[in-house]
């Protein structure tokens, strides 16, 4: 019941946002729904309930993890949205509020879905809902980004659907009848027809890897994250990417039980390494602070799939990385939004002396840089270290070396940008937008969480991470 409420509540709130006529009340719907949603997600984590229709909707450790991340993230973004939407009153908030709430509903459905068709429906819906939010600023650049995102995602998710249908055919071919319930697919995995499954997994992976923004199919990402408001970038880089990752991993689970684990792993490691390298290289000398974050996201998505591809300790690291990256990256997007607003630009030559110009955002931006580049004692340091050690343990020596080098390159690239943005001569004019406590507090909280996860992982969380990683442990 609670699980259904988790999906229905934001949808109802989205409907009310369309009907409400008062700007302030509409904005207020975001944190209210966000708080309720996060509360429900936490409750379901502490006290799992027996699902009404386990074949359709259920939470396993991985989906619980993604749900908690999404819930926390959304709540932080919703708090940030209050002052943000008030400042940007001229743009109106009806579409933005309704869009975000509908997005939350679609994402929750995608996370809880145990039927591949249902999951696909939710992922596709979240794609189309998020597109208009990228176009919030209504300028030619954001229009271009929106169009590219729309066409790119629509096609890639369509290919994933073809992959799902191929998997259904693999089952039809092997068993004589078919359905797409994950539970059945995992139970009868050994009977899936190999050729159809492999062909299906190829389409499936390309589709969801594009959605996740893995290189070399990441081209929409810098455009979309670069031109969308920081708020939307935060939601997409945190929640949408996590959901695409989850969807991709469902395919890996099926491959594992079908005895194709090695092939799936090789593909994940390949995608991971390419993304890590391309993401890191593109960060060097990147003059646009939001595109910089987008490439950082490409790199971090690469670490996620690399970790799962390697397995063992690295898979545990990847799960921790999923949480820490989502929080830190969203915080960085929100702060970049603050900087962009204060300077009226997101290009580095224009942003200087942020530490004195907008002290709170400037300092936090510096901290978000430390968090995102995996500086100790932030959580990303631990998670990246675990992936690295895991790679060594399983004798992925070249992968470990590439990972280490790329992390170094990314650090230098990010450092250049941060030094230029935070130090130097601040402009004489007073900032167009000053720090507002609600524009600073949510990213600060997200960074604090990242820091705490680096210092200690509370036992229930550690157990959840381990359980999620165990889903990808291939038994010999």
């Amino acid at each position, binding site marked *: 019941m609670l699980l259904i409420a988790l999906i229905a509540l934001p949808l109802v709130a989205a409907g009310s946002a369309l009907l409400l006529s008062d700007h302030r009340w509409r904005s207020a719907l975001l944190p209210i729904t966000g708080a309720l949603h996060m509360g429900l997600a936490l409750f379901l984590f502490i006290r799992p309930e027996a699902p009404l229709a386990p074949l359709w909707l259920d939470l396993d450790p991985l989906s619980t993890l993604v749900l908690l991340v999404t819930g926390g993230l959304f709540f932080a973004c919703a708090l940030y949205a209050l002052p943000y939407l008030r400042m940007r009153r001229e743009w109106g908030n009806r579409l933005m509020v309704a869009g975000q709430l509908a997005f939350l509903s679609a994402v929750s459905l995608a996370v809880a879905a145990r039927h591949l068709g249902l999951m696909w429906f939710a992922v596709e819906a979240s794609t189309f809902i998020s597109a208009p939010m990228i176009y919030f600023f209504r300028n030619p650049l954001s229009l271009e980004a929106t169009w590219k995102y729309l066409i790119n995602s629509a096609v890639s998710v369509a290919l994933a659907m073809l992959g799902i249908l191929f998997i259904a055919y693999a089952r039809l*071919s092997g068993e004589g009848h*078919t359905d797409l319930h994950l539970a059945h697919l995992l139970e009868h995995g050994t009977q899936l027809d190999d050729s159809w499954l492999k062909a299906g997994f190829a389409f499936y992976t390309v589709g969801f890897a594009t959605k996740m923004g893995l290189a070399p199919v990441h081209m929409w990402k810098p455009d979309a994250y670069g031109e969308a408001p920081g708020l939307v970038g935060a939601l997409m880089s945190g929640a949408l990417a996590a959901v695409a990752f989850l969807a991709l991993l469902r395919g890996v689970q099926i491959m594992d039980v079908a005895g194709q684990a090695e092939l799936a792993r090789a593909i994940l490691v390949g995608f991971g390494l390419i993304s890590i390298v391309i993401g890191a290289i593109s960060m060097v000398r990147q003059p646009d602070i939001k595109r910089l974050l987008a490439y950082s996201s490409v790199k971090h998505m690469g670490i996620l799939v690399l970790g799962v591809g390697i397995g063992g300790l690295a898979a545990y690291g990847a799960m921790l990385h999923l949480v820490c990256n989502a929080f830190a990256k969203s915080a960085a997007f929100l702060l970049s939004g603050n900087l962009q607003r204060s300077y009226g630009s997101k290009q580095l030559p224009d942003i200087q002396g942020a530490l004195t110009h907008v002290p709170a955002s400037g300092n936090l931006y510096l901290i978000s840089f430390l968090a995102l580049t995996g500086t100790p004692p932030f959580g990303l340091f631990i998670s990246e270290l675990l992936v690295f050690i895991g790679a060594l343990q399983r004798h992925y020596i070249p992968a470990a070396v590439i990972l280490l080098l790329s992390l170094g390159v990314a650090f230098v690239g990010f450092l250049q940008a941060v030094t230029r943005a935070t130090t130097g001569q601040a402009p004489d004019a007073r900032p167009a937008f000053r720090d507002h406590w609600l524009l600073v507090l949510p990213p600060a909280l997200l960074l604090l969480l990242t820091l705490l996860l680096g210092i200690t992982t509370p036992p229930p969380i550690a157990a959840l991470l381990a359980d999620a990683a165990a889903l990808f442990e291939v038994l010999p």
Partner: protein
Amino acid sequence: MNLVNNVLILVVFINFFMLSSSRLVPCIRAVSLQGALLALLPLLTHGFTAHTVVLSCGALALKGIIIPRLLLRTIEQVGIRRELEPIIGYVPTTALGALLTSASFLFANQLPLLPEHVDSLFIPVSLSTLSSGLLLLMTRKKAITQVLGYLVLENGIYIFGILLLEAMPTLVEAGVLLDLLVGIFVMGIVMHQIHRTYSDLGTEQLSALKE
């Protein structure tokens, strides 16, 4: 089976028509006809059940009527009739389409088909329609033609889906169609904005974002 195969061959003809035509209104009508043909397939292959009737009616309403109307209205408001400069000419795209279609047949032959699907054209036609859609998407510059390409691609996947009716319960199927409608609707809105910004529907203007 024969009737079904004939319908599927018509679907392929429509793909080629779209690949070779520069005029938008006939292309939209062709997509609409393709959608209507697809609506026949569930009934012809699986007979009349609640599931197939919903699937057919949904496809007919969306792919055959509503979406083509939306697109026709868009080009009327925008006032363009032709795709002027495709990235690759019409003859080469048609030739490429033919190549891809034969490749689809070869590929489908490689995969282990169930005995009852060996003589049917479902899988090769599905793959060929999918690749024609991708080809349209990649070789045309107008936003509207790219949307048409996306529709053709979706049609290809729909054809494959008909084979696997039992895997996709009615509700999920309805959701998939709903997604398609929402997607085309959002694309329509963005196309209006592109037109308002550039007074054209060419996506070549959309090239400011690069490294």
